[in-house]
Each structure stands twice: as structure tokens, then as C-alpha cells.
């Protein structure tokens, strides 16, 4: 339309050799077609998660754990006792596991909850840091999800249950029959609060 305003004298015939449509109509028609491409592209990307999953299941590709699975499938699962422990550093956070101990098998997904209560009248920002007993068992605790991956903010007197989900690797050395998972909640001093917490722990 702008074009027509700029070219009151332009006749469709004058430009007939290069294109057959009058400019304004032609422009709008082409733009509508191009907009359809944009919409198509948006639709295409919006179905990607579903397509990707379907493709992976259908083809069996991208199964990056396969080599690992082949290696570990030969190792039989065995029973292990898990013990859970929690400490807080005098920061007004009452912190304890909801399960004290658990009998599990290696290779199975374990889901346990920890409860935190902020006993103070102020907001507390903290981060849990794990340790393991025996220490070298830490490398065999493969965490899928953990509250310790991120800094946590607790409103005054808030009580919150937080999960840790992990798998005990089948390659756990034979002499380890009990694994203790212990978390300590440290308060993050105000001023050094980072929202981009990416501690070493998040690497599992």
C-alpha cells in the first residue's frame, strides 16, 4: 500500500515484463505466503520435543548410555544399605532426612526427601553441600535431581520437603555395603548471592 502511495503513476502494465500482478496486491500476496512459512517454521519447532522422542524411541539412536549399560548389565545388582544424614550450620535451618536408612539394590532409582524448616523470622538463602561415607563412594552416587544443585531461598518459618533422586552405580566396589549420604546446609552470606549457582556438585 505504501508502494502505491509512492507510485501514484505506476501502472501494472508498466511493470508487466517482470511481474504480472499489480504491485500492492502482489506484495500482500507474497507477504502472506512468507508469513505462512514463518508460521510453519514455528509449528515445526513446537513439535520438535515430541518428534525427537518418537524418533529416538523408533530408531534407538542417541542412546548414549548404551555402552555404559552393556558394560554394567553384566554386573549383577546387589543389596546395599543407604544411610541419610543432615546437618545445618547454626543458621536457623532445621534440616533432617525423612528416611534415616533404606535398603536398596544398586542400579535402581532411589528417591528420598529431606525436610527443611526455617526457624528464623528472616528469609534465609542457603546451599546444601554433600559428603559421602565412605568418601570414595561419592563417585558412584549418580544424581538425577538434587536440591543441592541450586541455592535455596526459605521464607520466614517456611517448611519445605525437597527431593534427591539418584542411582547407585553397579560398579560400586564390592567392599562397600553401606553408603552414607550426608548434607550440610550452609547459609549464603548476603552480598555473595548468585542466582547462577553451578557448583561442582551439579556435575553429579
Amino acid at each position: 500500500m505504501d508502494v502505491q502511495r509512492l507510485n501514484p503513476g505506476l501502472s501494472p502494465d508498466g511493470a508487466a515484463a517482470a511481474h504480472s500482478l499489480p504491485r500492492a496486491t502482489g506484495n500482500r500476496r507474497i507477504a502472506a505466503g512468507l508469513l505462512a512459512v514463518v508460521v510453519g517454521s514455528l509449528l515445526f519447532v513446537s513439535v520438535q520435543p515430541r518428534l525427537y522422542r518418537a524418533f529416538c524411541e523408533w530408531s534407538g539412536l542417541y542412546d548414549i548410555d548404551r555402552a555404559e549399560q552393556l558394560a554394567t548389565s553384566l554386573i549383577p545388582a546387589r543389596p546395599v544399605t543407604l544411610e541419610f544424614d543432615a546437618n545445618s550450620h547454626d543458621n536457623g535451618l532445621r534440616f533432617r532426612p525423612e528416611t534415616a536408612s533404606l535398603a536398596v539394590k544398586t542400579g535402581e532409582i532411589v528417591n528420598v526427601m529431606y525436610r527443611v524448616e526455617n526457624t528464623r523470622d528472616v528469609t534465609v538463602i542457603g546451599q546444601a553441600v554433600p559428603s559421602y561415607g565412605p568418601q570414595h563412594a561419592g563417585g558412584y552416587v549418580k544424581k538425577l535431581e538434587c536440591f543441592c544443585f541450586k541455592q535455596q531461598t526459605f521464607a520466614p518459618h517456611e517448611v519445605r520437603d525437597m527431593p534427591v533422586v539418584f542411582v547407585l552405580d553397579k560398579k560400586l566396589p564390592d567392599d562397600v555395603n553401606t553408603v552414607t549420604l550426608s548434607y550440610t546446609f550452609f547459609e549464603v552470606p548476603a552480598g555473595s548471592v548468585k542466582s547462577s549457582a553451578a557448583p561442582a556438585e551439579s556435575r553429579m
Partner: protein
Amino acid sequence: MQATQAAGHAGHHDDAGHGHGPTGLMRWITTTNHKDIGTMYLWFSFVMFLVGGAMSLIIRAELLSPGLQYVSPEFYNQMLTLHALIMVFGAIMPAFVGFANWMIPLMIGAPDMAFARMNNWSFWLLPPAAILLTSSIFVPGGAAGTGWTMYPPLSVQMGMGMDMAIFAIHILGMSSIMGSINIITTILNMRAPGMTLMKMPLFCWTWLVTAFLLIASMPILAGAVTMLLTDRHFGTSFFSAAGGGDPVLFQHIFWFFGHPEVYIIALPAFGVVSHVIPAFSRKHLFGYTSMVYAIAAIGLISFFVWAHHMYVTGIPLTGQLYFMYATMLIAVPTGVKVFNWVTTMWRGSLSFETPMLFALGFLVLFTIGGLTGLVLAMTAVDIQLQDTYYVVAHFHYVMVAGALFSAYAGLYFWLPKWTGHMYNETLGKLHFWLSMIFFNITFFPQHFLGLAGMPRRIPDYAQQFADFNMISSIGSFGFGISQLLVLVVVFKAIKGGPKAAARPWEGARGLEWTVPSPAPHHTFEEPPVFDPAEAHA
């Protein structure tokens, strides 16, 4: 020919009657004139180029010697992320959109872009996006520090700077899509009578394909970052393994956009060079038809090679082999283009003004970058070189020496048409030689660093990399400072200098040279008759 000259002059006289639009700042905010908008795009991109360049100098200052000297690792990460995002989306892309706005209507004999008001909006979306992106440095947690690829899980954990980057990308994407719709429509529907698609200047051809790549790929990026956003704030798990998602999915979607993006940047650069080399060889472009098909082939194949950025994600051997061969296939049409440029010069009557120097610099350095690209395409080699400085050297050879040098070639080539004055040739040549020398001092040693195993995106490095890093940093300071010369050249040309003729380069062909210099505010209000002598082939 004479008729078109007359038409151009008539347009100029007519212009005097149009002098009652808004003046001052409002003139620029409300303008729908393709030349004004092109100028704004070019200035915007130059400002962003300086901002992104300053960030790269912070990076190189930190890397001048081993250890941590000036910035924290977090800030270093933010700098390298913003440097990349600003240079790609804020500097190089708007620069070529600026060229497109200025030159495409002039090249095809159209009075303006097809949707002039939308054109205004495409430009004015850019400054808010740029402000959003750069100001994210100052929010708590700082800017996104993920690298421009924004891979989860890190990008899910970042602070609000990441959200600002995501929104900036949304806005930039909208701007690019609108600009592309405008460019395609203009090229398809507003050519002068007699200018068939296969007689169209190559810069228009490269932009036609680029614009199609943009409208197909920008929505993909928008979708990817939107999924990141919902993963961050709305509890979805597209990319989180704990919730059943897959972080590798993000890489697939990102690179399905990201690889065409590489050619979105490179193709218009090819277009500019395809104008400059014939003009200063005083010959027709060799192999016009094969050039057009090569552009289309590159554009098409670029959608089918994305996973060559992902060889180390554990994709199966069949996938690695396919993506390796498909990537190498791109070298064929690209090789056709390099061959044609060289053959255009063969037995030509060459002269070496600044635009030609930059085009030749492009040709040599882009070919080096293309060759290292072929090296990286090989899966077995790439697994070794993934995320090393070899990759950094490779893409700076194609991005800086490819896109930026070509943009400079175009700037010096068309500056007389824009300002009406010849630029200072001595300063232009000085600018070229300083750029050429310092560019290579900066980036050539990075090949060696990469081969020796220095990882990218890390502010510290082992002692054995110290010497090459110091050379590279010194080169980058020289390169940065010598880019200020172009500002001097442009200001001098705006203020005065020898009058430029309508066709300041005797070997140049095309309708843009039939209008006077400087090009009047309104041109080709009556479609010109296209003279086949002005055709590129």
C-alpha cells in the same frame, strides 16, 4: 540508459517538493525511506561493532598472560557470550540488512522497499533489543555467561541476565523476519521491467536466499529459547533430564537454526564480493548462472548439516558419517564460487582500490577459513578439536575476514554513491593493510593453540600457551584500534572530498550507478528501462 539517467534526475527535482516531512530526530524515527533506514542500520551496526569489539578486547586483555588478572571468570564468560551475540545479531546481520535496504531498491529499479512502514519498525526494534542485551551486564547475577549457544543445563540455571538475552533474541528475531519478508517481496515483485530473475544482480540473489533462510530458521531459534524460558520459569522439562527431557534436544534445535545462521551471515558477503571483483577486474562476473545455483545449493544444504557441531554428544556412527559427508558437500558449491571469483579476475584489467583490496582479503582469508572448516567437518579430527581454539580461529576467519571484510569492501564501494564524495584512498588502503596484518596476527596463532589443545571459553590457560596468546592479544589490540580508521574515512567522505560521479568506478555495472551521486532521496519513482548492458552476466 539516458532515459534512466533522466528519470533519476526527474526524481531528484521532484524531491524538492517533499521537503515538509518531520525534521531533526523525528525525521529518523518516522522515516519510511529505504535509504534513511539503510543508513540507520549501518550506523547501528557500527556502534554495536564497537561495543562487541570492546568486549573482545576485554577477553584478549585477560588472555594476554596466564592466570587471572583483570576480570573474574564469571565476567569473562559474560563478555564472551555478549561479544558473540552482539557481533552476530547486532553488528554483522544489521550491517548487511543496511546494505540490502540501501542497495536492493536501487539495484532492481524499485522506488522503495515493498512494505516501507514495516521496514521502519524492523529497524526500530533493534535498539531496544540491543539495550536489553547490553544492560543485562548490570542486573544481579550479570549477563548470560553460557556462550552464545546457550546450552542447558547451564542456561536454565543462569540469573535474570539469561531472560533478558532470551527476550532480546525474540525481538531481534521479529526484526529479522519482518526485514526478510520485506526483502523477498521487494525482490520478487518490484523489479524493473526487463530485469528477469536471472539478470538480477548477485547481491539481490544472495539476499533472496538469505531472507528465505531467515524466515525459516529464526522461528526455530525463537522456539528453542522459548522452551528454555519455560524450563526456567514455568516448570516444564523440555531440556531437563530429571523431568524426562533431554539437553541434547536443545543442541539439535539450536544448531538446526545455527548452521543456516552461518550462511545468513556469509551469503550477503558473497553477494558484495560478486559485485566488487568484476568492477575492479573490468569484466563480467564469470559463471553467473553457476553462482546463482551455488547460492541456492548452499542455502539448501545448510539445513541438513547441523549435527556437525555435535559430534561429541554421542550421536551414532551412521549419524556422524552422514553429517560429515553432508558438511563436506557444502565445500562443492562454495568452491564453485571461489573458482568463479578467481576466474573473473583472470586476464582482467585489475586495479587495487580499497574495495578490491578488501574483496581480495576476503577471498584469501575466507578460503583459509573454509579449509579449516573442512578439517573440522571430519568427525575423527573434530572430536579432538571440539571446543579448542582451532574452532575459534576457524570461525573468526569466516566471520571477520569473511563477513566483516566483505562489508568493508561494500562500504568503500558504495560510499561514493551514499555520500556523493570519494573517500580518502590513502586512509582506506591504510585501513585495509592494518586490518589484514593485525587480523592474521590475532587469529592465525589460534590455530596452533587449538591444535596444541587449548580449550576455548576459559579465562586461564597452561603456561605453554603463553607466547601465542600474547601474540594474539597484541594483534587484537592493533586490529581494534585500526577499525577506528573507518570512522575517520566515513566522516571525511560525509563532510567533503572530491565529487563522486554517478558511476565512480568505471568497471561497475548495475542500475545503482545510473542515479546521481549522492543518490537522491527518492529514486526510480518511474520504473527504469533495464538496459542489458547493466546486467551482471
